[in-house]
């Protein structure tokens, strides 16, 4: 599988087969990393936005205010 | 192996089996079992699951007495040349064709047991270890130390006694020789044949007896239409035998 294994040869067959294989693996993993990073950024953005909103709504006691709001909704 | 001049001599080890001489005594099969530590099963009458690197087939011409004729076909691995069916299919590179000797060899500890090579082989040469090999206690002492016993779940096959090739080479190397003489490397079955029906040698070397024998009009191979190019040749003077080998095609 890797160029270090005994069976590996630098011939057309190996280059095509493993070229395609690694292309697929890279495509899958870059997409996954993209999704992971984007999701983390989204969560962070959400948290920041919520904190900002809370802070501007209730500048004095943000935490109490959030709790009250939740209780009131439920 | 290298010759004295230093260039690589490419050998193609092959075998001839004279079916007219073969009496079907089974010695070759027995010594093969002993030489290669081939395990046996509890029920050896079940030929669909037993292990045999060398199997002997009894074939008749289908006629009634007094015209019936019987021949025996000892069948080792055909060591198919350059277009080997089993080698290209192995997913784990466990089996290989050696370009320097023409031997189709195998790493048993590499085999994953997918049995694709068995499906590919038309000669039914390869056997699968359906059970763990078990020998009676006393018999374990008689196992050949030059051949590692195989484990359950792998495929195994005749290797033309490649360990004998290594031994012959060791001896030659110890004597400072770089080549093997014709009689130095001979598989166990060929050595044991009591009627001398089997010969073994390098098909590329015109001085070897086998290279001359395969030129004979008596020589034929099994299933030549499949173009597997076996290196095991059979010899027979009977036309029905020669035709039978190719399914009368």
């Amino acid at each position: 599988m890797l160029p270090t294994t005994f069976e590996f040869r630098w011939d057309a067959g190996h280059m095509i087969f493993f070229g395609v294989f690694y292309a697929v693996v890279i495509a899958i993993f870059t997409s996954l990393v993209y999704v992971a990073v984007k999701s983390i950024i989204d969560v962070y953005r959400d948290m920041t936005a919520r904190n900002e909103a809370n802070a501007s709504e209730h500048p004095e006691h943000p935490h109490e205010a959030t709790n009250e709001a939740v209780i009131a909704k439920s | 192996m290298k010759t004295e001049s230093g260039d690589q001599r490419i050998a193609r080890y092959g075998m001839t089996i004279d079916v007219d001489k073969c009496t079907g005594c089974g010695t070759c099969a027995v010594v093969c079992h002993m030489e290669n530590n081939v395990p046996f099963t509890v029920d050896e009458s079940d030929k669909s699951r037993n292990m045999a690197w060398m199997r002997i087939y009894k074939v008749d011409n289908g006629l009634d007495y007094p015209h019936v004729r019987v021949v025996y076909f000892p069948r080792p691995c055909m060591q198919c040349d350059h277009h080997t069916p089993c080698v290209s299919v192995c997913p784990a590179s466990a089996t290989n064709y050696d370009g320097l000797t023409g031997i189709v060899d195998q790493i048993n500890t590499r085999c994953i047991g997918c049995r694709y090579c068995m499906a590919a082989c038309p000669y039914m040469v390869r056997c699968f270890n359906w059970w763990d090999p078990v020998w009676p206690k006393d018999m374990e002492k008689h196992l050949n130390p030059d051949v590692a016993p195989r484990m359950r779940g792998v495929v195994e096959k005749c290797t033309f006694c490649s360990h004998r090739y290594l031994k012959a080479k060791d001896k030659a190397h110890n004597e400072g020789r770089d080549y093997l003489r014709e009689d130095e490397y001979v598989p166990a079955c060929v050595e044991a044949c009591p009627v001398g029906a089997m010969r073994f040698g390098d098909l590329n070397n015109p001085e070897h007896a086998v290279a001359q024998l395969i030129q004979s009009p008596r020589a034929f191979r099994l299933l030549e239409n499949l173009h597997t190019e076996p290196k095991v040749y059979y010899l027979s003077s009977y036309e029905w035998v020669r035709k039978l080998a190719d399914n009368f095609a």
Partner: protein
Amino acid sequence: MKMRDISESQRQFALLGGIFAAALVVSLIMGWILFPSLAYARKAQPINYNPPLHVEQIGITCDTCHFFYEDGSWAGIPTLETCVDCHSDIIGASPEEEKFVNEYVKKNREVKWALYVKQPECVSFSHSSHVRMAKIACETCHGPQGHSDPKDYLANRITNYSYVVYDPRVPLNAFTIIRDKGETVWGTMRMDECTACHRSRGTSTACFICHK
């Protein structure tokens, strides 16, 4: 106030990131240093055989005891019979020598040497092809074993194969285990070391050449 809240979410993320980084460092330390030393057991030889004494001071060569038979097969680790040729009585004043003669020679017991270079059952190796034909020196694969003084050896706890071929003073961690193929004297004599050499010399790499 606003600033504090933003920094709170930042702090949460920084905390998570910190935990991740710390876990990574811990895992790396475990993988590179802790596990290699857990995986190998240090074992002592039954008799502390002294190679430099034999090779450098007495001047005997490897093939005096590790000799070849006529048919090209190799004697391997010498049996008691070979040792007794010289050690039928205590030579010198070493306590190990005394132990060897009293415990083994006199009682006719074979020494169960721990092998540095044991290969699995599926491997066949010909010393005559390598030493006699290819003229490879013993040191090429075994290292300067005759000039070093191994006190104990490292055995893999699972496979029981030894790791460092001749020198236990080498620190045991992943950096010495996964090492450049050129420095194979430290090696574990794995298949890739054999095949690399066979390839570079243009010798056969057929399966059956090394696998039985």
